[in-house]
């Protein structure tokens, strides 16, 4: 009995060490990024001989950066909404259902995730022209949405496969039609997966350069702007922009989380 407790504790300590080591690995580059935004030079790197706040204050004075940030956030949110709806629908169709062509359908579902970025971007560009979609915000949202659907499908399917069938059946027995059974039983069960997938999609969209570049108009997304600025060197300015963008997204994220929690409580 004592051995068992010892074992549990040992495991726990080991696992928490791994976790915090991982946090360190993930955060050190981030800390370096924030730090370099204070370097008084046009290039990042050690040693830092003198410090300045100019790069950070400069970001807030730069209307272009701020509007670009808003533009990127809007694209990420819109494309994520589309991806989540479509992806969940496809996952419901594919999971636990046997029909002719299911394998092919699954293959085609994950297709957009497989294609290397540059190829995908060019394929989207050719197809957008074929469909008559003008380059700009709509085109970027569309490309991001399509590209992110497979990730939603995979994550939601994994969760869906563990939903006890008996629950749905019970609901159906009580007279619920399939749509209501889905809304009342399946959907709540899927919420963690859908939330996870949404974060995923937001990240992918916010971070995407190559599709945004090929499908964009004259307004750059944040990564496109950073790429253009990178031509004159990886400067503390870029680090400052990235840091400010990070903080702003975190603030928006926390606010959104609070907001949805409040909404949930009210309903």
């Amino acid at each position, binding site marked *: 009995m004592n051995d068992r407790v010892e074992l549990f504790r040992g495991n726990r300590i080991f*696992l928490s060490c791994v976790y915090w080591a991982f946090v360190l690995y993930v955060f050190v580059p981030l800390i370096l*990024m924030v730090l370099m935004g204070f370097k008084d030079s046009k290039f990042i790197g050690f040693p830092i001989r003198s410090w300045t706040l100019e790069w950070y204050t400069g970001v807030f004075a730069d209307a272009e950066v701020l509007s670009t940030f808003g533009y990127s956030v809007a694209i990420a949110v819109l494309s994520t909404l589309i991806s989540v709806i479509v992806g969940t629908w496809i996952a419901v169709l594919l999971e636990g259902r046997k029909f002719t062509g299911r394998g092919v359908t699954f293959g085609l579902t994950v297709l957009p995730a497989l294609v290397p970025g540059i190829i995908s971007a060019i394929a989207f560009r050719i197809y957008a022209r074929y469909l008559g979609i003008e380059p700009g915000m709509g085109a970027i949202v569309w490309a991001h949405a399509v590209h992110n*659907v497979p990730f939603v499908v995979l994550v939601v399917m*994994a969760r869906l*496969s563990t939903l006890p069938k008996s629950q749905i059946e019970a609901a159906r027995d009580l007279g619920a039609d399939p749509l209501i059974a889905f809304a*009342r039983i399946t959907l709540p069960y899927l919420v963690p997966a859908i939330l996870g997938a949404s974060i995923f999609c937001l990240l992918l969209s916010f971070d995407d350069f190559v599709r945004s570049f090929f499908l964009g108009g004259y307004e750059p997304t944040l990564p496109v702007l950073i790429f253009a600025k990178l031509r004159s060197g990886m400067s503390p300015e*870029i680090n400052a922009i990235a840091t400010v963008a990070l903080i702003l997204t975190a603030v928006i994220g926390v606010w959104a989380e609070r907001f949805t929690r409040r909404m949930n409580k009210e309903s």
Partner: protein
Amino acid sequence: MAEETSDRTFWGRLASWGPYHAMMRLATASPRRQFVVLAAFPILWILTQHLGPMLQMLRVSLTDAYPVAPGVEQHFTLENYARFFGDSIFWMPFFRTLIFAGVFTFCTLIITYPVAYFLARHVSRKNQMLFLLLLLIPFWVGEIVRTYAIMILLGNTGAVNLALKTLGLIDRPIPFMYTSFSMGVGIVYLTALYMLLPLYSALEKLPKSMNEAAADLGAGAWTRFRRVSLPLTIEGISSGCTLVFLISTGFYATPVLLGGPSTTVFAETIAGFFHVAGDEWPTGAAFATIMFMAALIITTVFQKLMNALRKGEKK
């Protein structure tokens, strides 16, 4: 009784609303019709949105000229594919990419499994989301900025070398950068997220009691993990690995920036056809198709294998 309670809710009211009721009856008249209603939109979406762009690319890969200059006639040809199989210089980056993707996928799994396990099993439910979000924060930073941060971490005057030197452990800097090591550090950073989420959602729904029951029966930690946690999370492992493998084959910026002279990946080869020589789109498209087919075959086999494994465990 059940009817009475459900009548008060939104769903109850919806269910007894005439038009909705009629529509649902129409849609679910037979299992066949119900399936058609469910499948119509996804199939349409997949065909037009997923397949459409790819078919365009496939078409380009089978032509001898694209974009077509005025006055030039476009012919269909298989030559772009033949070029890959006919020239061994393309094989090296191709197989290297598949091997790298496999190795990095495995590394990511090994590194993130304990992290996901800790999150799902040893962190109280209230804090789980917080701890998970903590890990996700750095991924909000764009790939390029993050990659440069890794450069100033691992460079000759980078943070790690600086620390080692200050501690008196080394005299001259260790050249970490532009090796498969620096590339791995950068890539695992990118892939960890894709592995972490499926693993976490698989582990999170494992009932805690199961492990305790096994422990009561005298099973050690390793046995418990191997006999209980692992089989039940194969689903998550399988989708995480699939995801990470697929994404890894397409990485471009990170391997190019962090890799060295002998770590060229296939995405770089493909991009070369679009960057350097603008008239080689068809070859680039063909090579991309080959990469895609290979990755698809590998992941299909992998999924089949995992499925078999799972079924075997269940028996």
